[in-house]
C-alpha cells in the first residue's frame, strides 16, 4: 500500500469528496433557490384559501389572482405569531363580521393544526380547514374530506360525537367510523376553539 503514496491514499479521496460535495450542493441549492418563491407563494396561497374556506366565503379554486382579490376585500390579517398572522378578521362591506384563528391539538400520530372560522359572537362556527395533520390515510385523514369539514358550518359548540352520518342538531358532530382516536381529538380541538380564538384576539389588543 505504501507505494501508492500519501496523495492517492489520503489527499485524493478528501479532495474528491470535497469537489463532489461542492458540485452537488451548488446544483441542489440552485434548484432550491429557483423554486423558493414558488414555494412561498404556494404556502401563502394555501393559507389564504384555508381562511376563506373556514370563513365560508366562496373563491375560484385554481385562480390565484381571483383568490387574492377576494382575500384582500374580505380578510384582514392581525398581528403575527410564529411567522404567520395571529388571527384574521372577516369583513363584510368593510366592517368586521367574523373571525378566523389557528387552533392546534394532539391527534393520533401527531399535531393537528386547523383554522376555525367564527361569527362575530365567537360562538357560531362558520367552518374549518385543517392545515396540518398526520392521521391515518383513509381513516383519520378523512377529516380533510369536504363532508367532514362542511358539517361545522353554522353549528354552535360545545359538541358531542355521534355515529358517522347521523349528526343533526347544532351540537352534534359526525365521528369517523374506525377512527375513534382522531374523532375525539377533533372534538377536543373544536370544543376549545372558541376559547383559543377569544384569547388570541384579546392578547393582540382586539375586541369583539
Amino acid at each position: 500500500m505504501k507505494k501508492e503514496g500519501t496523495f492517492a491514499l489520503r489527499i485524493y479521496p478528501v479532495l474528491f469528496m470535497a469537489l463532489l460535495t461542492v458540485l452537488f450542493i451548488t446544483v441542489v441549492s440552485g434548484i432550491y433557490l429557483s423554486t423558493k418563491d414558488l414555494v412561498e407563494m404556494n404556502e401563502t396561497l394555501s393559507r389564504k384559501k384555508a381562511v376563506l374556506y373556514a370563513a365560508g366565503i366562496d373563491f375560484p379554486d385554481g385562480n390565484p389572482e381571483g383568490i387574492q382579490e377576494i382575500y384582500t376585500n374580505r380578510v384582514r390579517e392581525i398581528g403575527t405569531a410564529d411567522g404567520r398572522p395571529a388571527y384574521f378578521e372577516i369583513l363584510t362591506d368593510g366592517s368586521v363580521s367574523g373571525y378566523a384563528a389557528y387552533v392546534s391539538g394532539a391527534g393520533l400520530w401527531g399535531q393537528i393544526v386547523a383554522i376555525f372560522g367564527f361569527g362575530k359572537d365567537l360562538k357560531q362556527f362558520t367552518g374549518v380547514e385543517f392545515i396540518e395533520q398526520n392521521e391515518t390515510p383513509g381513516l383519520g385523514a378523512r377529516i380533510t374530506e369536504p363532508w367532514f369539514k362542511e358539517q361545522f358550518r353554522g353549528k354552535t359548540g360545545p359538541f358531542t360525537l355521534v355515529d358517522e352520518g347521523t349528526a343533526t342538531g347544532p351540537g352534534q358532530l359526525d365521528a369517523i367510523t374506525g377512527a375513534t382516536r382522531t374523532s375525539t381529538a377533533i372534538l377536543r380541538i373544536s370544543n376549545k376553539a372558541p376559547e383559543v380564538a377569544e384569547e388570541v384576539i384579546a392578547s393582540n389588543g382586539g375586541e369583539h
Partner: protein
Amino acid sequence: MNGSLYPVAILFAAIFTNNILLTNYLGMCSFLSVSRELKTSVGLGVAVTFVMATTSVLNWLVYNKILVPLELEYLRFIVFIIVIAAFVQIVEMVIERVSETLYAALGIFLPLITVNCAILGVSLFMVIREYSFIESFTFGLGSGIGWFLAILAMAGIRQKLKKARLPKGLEGAGITLVITGMMAMAFMGFSGMINIG
C-alpha cells in the same frame, strides 16, 4: 398531557403504539434478511438501538443549531445521512480498537446500519414532529428498542418455523411478511394506551 412526562410518553409510544417497523415499515431490508437467526438478530438489534439513540441526538443538534440558523434546512437529507455514516464509521473504528470480542459480535452489522431506513427515518420524523432535544433522544431510543423487540420476536418465531411445512411460494420472505402483519395487528392493540402529538 403533562409537559415533563411527555418524553416518557414518546418513549413508550415509539416502542409499542408507533413501532417504527410495524407501523412505518422502516428498516424492513435488514429485518427480513437478518431475522433468520436469533443470535445475529440480538447483535443487530443492540447496534441499531445504540446508533438510533445517538444519531437522533446528533442530528437534532446539527439541524437546530447549524442548519436552521443558516436557513439550509433543505440540505438536511444529505447532512443527516452523512452524520449517520460518519458516526457508524467512528463507532466501528472505536470498537475495533477497544474490544476484539465486541467487534466480532457487532462489527459486521455496522455497515448494514448506514442503509437502514429506520435510522434516517427517526431523524426525519424528529424534524417533522418538531421534537425537543430530550424528546428526540427518547424517540430515538424508543424506536430502537421497538425495532429490537420486533426483530427479536420475529427471529424467535422463525426458528420454530423451520420445522413447519409451508406452501412453496410462501417460504422465506412471504411467510415473514405474513407474520410481520400479524405482529403489526397485535401491536395495534396497544394503540389508545398512549396518545402522542
